């Protein structure tokens, strides 16, 4: 029997190679995703280990410290105590201050300034170029910051303090910092000497003291010594504990990414499984006759069955090995991609390929198990028929194209019911996250039901498309796509899953974007908005005055956010505007009362806050001991609890009021040329180091580009699943071509040209791709709508919108991919000689 199996393998090389590629791709995808998850985790761990490297003891404020202690940080004398503790070889404080950094374009950006630890071993960054700062006027700069701000070693580094005073440093080096709470925040950062730091921020706020032990002193001994030396109120940890604690946090963060990737691996698994299953079904169906012949010459049913399984096992094993190797490649590729896009530590990405036993097991499990299972069903079917009947059977004859069973319909209906119930439950959820997850899971169950009844509607859709086709080759193609509904349904299913998910995500993201656009329009009746790009560097009154003098500017409204304790409101955060701007430049959606003519002792309150506090128009409340009367209620949530006048906001802030404004709203005279006005405004803007000109259009563009980036990532991942799915189409087509050699020859004999034969296959491929893609788009749009409904609540309204452009691109890509998928099978079919084809059994 072994000889027969080997001979069989050799004889059907082409078909086997194809199915092996299908298996290998699936395995590659699953292992690639797992390896990627492990790599991301390892990468993050390694990065975090850096901030705790060489640390033998770490001092933090006790977790139960009160607020004022928390605000002031660890007192400076504690550092001295730690340094003089027995067994400490060196200790340094960790602190950072915010300052505005002037880029070479003259624009300020928020930057974190850290002091250079005096103990060399405690520096948690790697020098890249030059040296670390030694003098008070020297600085080293993070490599990423250097790149963004266009600064290099030898340049001057200009930092602005809280009062906009400029401090100049010479850049003497660049460094790379491991991921830490600081570098993860995405802000730029620089390192100066401890004395240099004091010139910018006089007050020190130490959040951590780290120490290295002298030789022979254990971490625990060191911790005990330090604990005794500094007294209570502090948490002293060993370096090991610090590492473990940070790693636990990182583990969680990396775990989230891994969950996402695993969910994705599951989808890829299903897609790959379907392609493999379909390939095997066709393979065995084609061999029915051969298997029957084997039985006629005396092979037992069990022998034939085992031979099919053994073959599947062999293929599964070989393809799994290839797939796992391919998966490592996929993972390396994706890491390189993330590296260029820039992750949490984009400049420091190293390609890692950790191979765990889980990954190997999953790879082989998928490759071998799915393959063998995929072979069992068709093999059982093949061996069940009487040998003589099987010998007579033609491809796609009655017994081959079984009608969609009643059982299938019943099962699908039940699953659909469960899914519908899930969706209903999801829609009832108040909170956004559970609503999203429950509804998301439920629509996947619905998708399963839809896939199950594929053989029912796929022929209908095919006939619908077929009606639009002209010409004999195209009509023949439609007939071919419709001849075996089960096969066509299974082939298109993989693609359908991929497209459904992409379309769903696209619709949800598109709706989110549409909503944001509307909000931007509503929120910005002003033509332009000038804001400070450094949060603690407000725009000055002088600057506002300059701006109001620019030609065509009809009105300027400064904005000031204020927060104070309130007797009635949970959060006393309000936004202040000049009274004459409220109702014109500031136009919230009104729920009652009037906006105009707001006095300094009056407040426009958000409806929800008012309800919660039991307030209505006419009631009064206190913020920062100042009495306000409620004169109007609004629906918008973009002003905090409410709107007050500018003087009122200043009085709420009392001594903490900044010397200026966070934002200036600019209104142009009617009919002003926007381009001219922008040029005029920019001349004034250029005089301020921190001011940035914004506009509604630009805000929209900014928001959209963020959503688009997320979408791009999802498209890239799902794109891989689509490639597998399209490979499935190519596979089915190739096997069909082999199966229909005789028919193709007949058609050629009757006068179908080579070109027409190729055209026929290309059209069939496009038809299958379109069935998958169109049904996928419809499902995705529907599911997207359900998700949007689920996520939306009274608080957060998303209006449903279909991004037709992107979906059009997707359909276009499906057609192009279908043409590519058909290329090889079509070539093969056209190359066959007519006579040879007719002779084929």
């Amino acid at each position, binding site marked *: 029997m072994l000889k027969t199996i080997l001979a069989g393998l050799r004889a059907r090389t082409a078909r086997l190679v194809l199915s092996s590629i299908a298996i290998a791709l699936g395995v590659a995808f699953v292992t690639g995703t797992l390896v990627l998850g492990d790599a991301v985790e390892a990468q993050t761990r390694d990065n975090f280990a850096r901030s705790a490297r060489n640390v033998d003891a770490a001092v933090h404020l006790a977790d139960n410290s009160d607020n004022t202690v928390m605000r002031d940080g660890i007192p400076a004398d504690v550092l001295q105590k730690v340094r003089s503790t027995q067994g400490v070889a060196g200790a340094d404080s960790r602190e950072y201050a915010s300052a505005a950094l002037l880029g070479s374009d003259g624009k300020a950006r928020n930057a974190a300034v850290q002091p250079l630890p005096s103990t060399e071993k405690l520096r948690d960054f790697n020098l890249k170029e030059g040296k670390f700062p030694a003098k008070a006027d020297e600085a080293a700069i993070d490599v990423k910051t250097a790149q963004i701000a266009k600064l290099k070693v030898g340049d001057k580094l200009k930092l602005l303090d809280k009062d906009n005073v400029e401090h100049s440093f010479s850049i003497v080096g660049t460094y790379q910092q491991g991921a830490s709470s600081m570098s993860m925040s995405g802000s730029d950062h620089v390192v100066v000497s401890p004395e240099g730091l004091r010139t910018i921020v006089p007050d020190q706020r130490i959040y951590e003291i780290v120490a290295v032990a002298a030789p022979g002193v254990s971490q625990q001994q060191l911790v005990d010594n330090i604990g005794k030396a500094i007294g209570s109120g502090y948490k002293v940890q060993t370096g090991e504990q610090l590492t473990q604690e940070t790693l636990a946090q990182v583990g969680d963060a990396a775990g989230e990414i891994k969950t996402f990737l695993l969910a994705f691996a599951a989808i890829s698994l299903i897609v790959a499984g379907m392609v493999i299953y379909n390939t095997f079904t066709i393979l065995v169906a084609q061999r029915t006759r051969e298997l029957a012949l084997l039985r006629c010459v005396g092979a037992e049913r069990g022998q034939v069955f085992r031979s099919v399984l053994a073959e599947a096992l062999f293929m599964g094993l070989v393809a799994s090995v290839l797939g796992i190797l391919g998966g490592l490649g996929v993972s390396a590729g994706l890491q390189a991609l993330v590296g260029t896009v820039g992750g949490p530590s984009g400049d420091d990405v190293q390609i890692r390929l950790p191979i765990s036993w889980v990954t190997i097991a999953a790879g082989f499990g998928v490759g071998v198990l799915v393959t063998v299972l995929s072979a069992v069903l068709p093999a059982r079917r093949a061996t069940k028929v009487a040998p003589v009947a099987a010998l007579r059977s*033609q*491809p*796609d*004859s*009655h017994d081959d194209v079984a009608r969609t069973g009643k059982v299938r319909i019943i099962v699908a209906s039940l699953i659909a019911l469960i899914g519908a119930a899930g969706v209903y439950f999801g829609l009832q959820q108040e909170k956004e996250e559970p609503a999203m997850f429950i509804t998301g899971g439920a629509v996947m169950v619905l998708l399963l039901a839809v896939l199950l009844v594929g053989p029912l509607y796929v022929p209908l859709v095919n006939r619908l498309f077929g009606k639009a086709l002209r010409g*004999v080759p195209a009509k*023949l193609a439609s*007939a*071919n796509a*419709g*001849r075996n509904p089960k096969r066509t349904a299974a082939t298109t299913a993989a693609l359908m899953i991929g497209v459904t998910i992409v379309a769903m995500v696209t619709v949800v993201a598109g709706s989110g974007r549409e909503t944001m656009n509307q909000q931007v329009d509503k929120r910005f009746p002003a033509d332009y908005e000038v804001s400070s790009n450094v949060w603690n560097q407000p725009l000055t009154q002088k600057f506002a005055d300059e701006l109001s003098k620019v030609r065509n500017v009809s009105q300027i409204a400064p904005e000031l956010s204020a927060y104070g304790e309130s007797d009635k409101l949970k959060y006393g955060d309000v936004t202040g505007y000049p009274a004459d701007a409220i109702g014109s430049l500031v136009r919230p959606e009104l729920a009652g009362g009037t906006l105009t003519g707001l006095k300094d002792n009056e407040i426009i309150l958000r409806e929800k806050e008012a309800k919660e506090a039991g307030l209505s128009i006419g009631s009064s409340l206190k913020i920062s001991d100042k009495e306000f009367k409620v004169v109007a209620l609004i629906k918008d949530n973009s002003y905090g609890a409410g709107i007050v006048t500018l003087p009122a906001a200043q009085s709420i802030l009392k001594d903490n009021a900044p010397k200026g404004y966070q934002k200036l709203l600019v209104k142009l005279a009617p009919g002003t040329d926007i381009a001219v006005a922008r040029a005029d405004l920019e001349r004034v803007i250029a005089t301020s180091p921190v001011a940035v000109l914004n506009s509604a259009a630009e805000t929209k563009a900014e928001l959209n580009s963020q959503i688009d980036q997320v979408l791009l990532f999802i498209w890239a991942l799902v794109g891989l699943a689509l490639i597998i799915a399209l490979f499935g189409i190519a596979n089915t087509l190739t096997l069909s071509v082999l199966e229909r050699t*005789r*028919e193709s020859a*007949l*058609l*050629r*004999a*009757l*006068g*179908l*040209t*080579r070109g*027409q034969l190729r055209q026929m296959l290309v059209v069939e491929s496009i038809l299958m791709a379109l069935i998958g893609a169109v049904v996928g788009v419809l499902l995705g749009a529907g599911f997207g709508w359900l998700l949007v409904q689920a996520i939306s609540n009274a608080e957060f309204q998303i209006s449903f919108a279909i991004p037709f452009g992107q979906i059009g691109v997707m359909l276009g890509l499906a057609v192009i991919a279908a043409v590519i998928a058909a290329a090889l099978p079509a070539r093969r079919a056209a190359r066959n*000689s*007519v*006579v040879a084809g*007719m002779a084929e059994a």
Partner: protein
Amino acid sequence: MSALVSEVGTRTAAAAHNLVKVYGKGDTAVRALDGINVAFEAGRFTAIMGPSGSGKSTLMHCLAGLDTVDGGSIHIGQTEITKLNDKDLTKLRRDRVGFVFQAFNLLPTLTAQQNILLGLELAGRKPDQQWFDTIVNVLGLRDRLHHRPTELSGGQQQRVACARALVARPEVIFADEPTGNLDSRSGAEVLDFLRMSVRKLGQTVIMVTHDPVAASYADRVVLLADGRLAGEIHQPTTESVVNALTHLGA
């Protein structure tokens, strides 16, 4: 040679001149056709006979433009088809030649009617409704037109194939063992029809067969042996064919 001479004056539907076809190379090369000279008159029913492996199918495939040749020339009507490229050959088959094969004549996805009209559709020609009706009625396919091949008996399938070959009124119909898979009654029906189409409709039919009974329906039998012409019989009967075959040593 005598065959060629005797045809002078009558119209020739298809002819082969010094036709050579070799399969394989070197030691294993087989000369399937070894210098064949033969002509087929228009409006007649000719059978090609010979022992198995004598080159009957190969000859038919070459004559019909389904296969390339290694020497000599072939004419369909006035056209030398050995000079045509694949595209022109395909057009020639589509427009001027009809086929009936031993089996797998029909596309399983199309109904009987669609199968009958397939050739015309490929050529972009409108079917002549009256002609279509005549053929369908004569062949008794009227109530089978909307069935698919799997719902037809073997004999019905072959009759559909005959109808397809005839409906386009080709210059020549080639049939390769059209009755090979049929029981004797269904076979007789198909052969009757082919003979009728020649006698009454003036069609030209060239049929390959190894069955002396089938050959007896033809006007003339051309005998092949080892890739060469081995004689011919005019107005054959089953007995004369069996006789000739015995002499060939089959």
